[in-house]
């Protein structure tokens, strides 16, 4: 809910800055290991914008894949294990399973808005 509220505050400031009044869509990029549940964010966004200039706008959420940097050999690779997230992600270069650094997958930002 507070993520949705921050999102709306930023959209509002951008709309004011660009002198536009109706919002059609907002594009959000969220890393895979962020605590963001797309359905929950969408619901919070829709209910918080009811009766405002943002009502009915599309919330497009793109998930940024999890990219890791091996803690031993430095190789970069994408981990796709869905169930346990990045636990026991095996480095394709050296086989190391632990201690990888997160390169992408933690971000949470607004990429653009579509408004008139």
């Amino acid at each position, binding site marked *: *809910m*507070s*993520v949705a509220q*921050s*999102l709306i*505050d*930023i*959209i509002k400031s*951008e709309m004011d800055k*660009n002198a*536009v009044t109706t919002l059609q869509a907002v594009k*959000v990029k969220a890393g895979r*290991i*962020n*605590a963001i549940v797309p359905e929950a964010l969408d619901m919070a966004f829709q209910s918080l914008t009811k009766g405002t200039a943002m009502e009915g706008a599309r919330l497009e959420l793109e998930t940024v894949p999890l990219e890791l940097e091996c*803690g031993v050999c430095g190789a970069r690779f994408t981990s796709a294990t869905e169930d*346990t*997230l*990045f*636990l*026991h992600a095996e480095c394709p270069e050296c086989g190391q*399973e*632990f*201690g990888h650094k*997160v390169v992408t997958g933690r*971000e*949470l*930002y*607004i*990429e*653009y*808005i*579509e*408004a*008139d």
Partner: protein
Amino acid sequence: MQIQVVRKILEHNEETAKRLRDTFSRHRTLVLNLMSSPGAGKTTLLESTLGTLQRSFNTAVIEGDISTTRDAERIAATGAQTLQINTDGACHLDSSMVLQALEHLDLSELDILFIENVGNLVCPAEFELGEDATITLLSVPEGDDKPEKYPGMFAKSHALILNKTDLLPFLTFDVERAKTAAMTVNKDLEFFAVSAAQGDGLQDWTRWIAEKVRGKQATG
């Protein structure tokens, strides 16, 4: 028309957290953000360590709860200065709540400030509060699979405290499994095994804090 924005959604929280961090640094106050599921024993851990810590350090506690002042009353009974933040439904503390609470604290007198976050293993991890270290408590009855199920929390922590170890003989909890899983997402994690209620293992934990305080006071 399309307007490029590229702004972090939690930028406001991050900016305020930075302000907090600067303030804490200026006063050389060590700030520890305590997080866990509800009922893991954050308040009990504080109750059983504040006495020892206060012999050497001036300590205060910010208590974050959705409602009630029950925890704050327990902490105040130890003699530590206590401030209650009621989040009115929010499942985590954010940095502006902490900033407001600071109006009632004299940081120049403080060596350690504990922030006891709202009990929740998900959301608090996303909201920095300007702290020096994030401490996650995991209690034995919760199960050894929690680091695997909530990696975000453990990845962001500096220390993991396994609490209620006095219950280990009665439950199937594999300490190594929990520890390995947590260290997998975070190889620099400090690990402590304690029973806050029984007073076991607390010495390592208070010693770690004392070292952190000295480190903080040696800066600047």
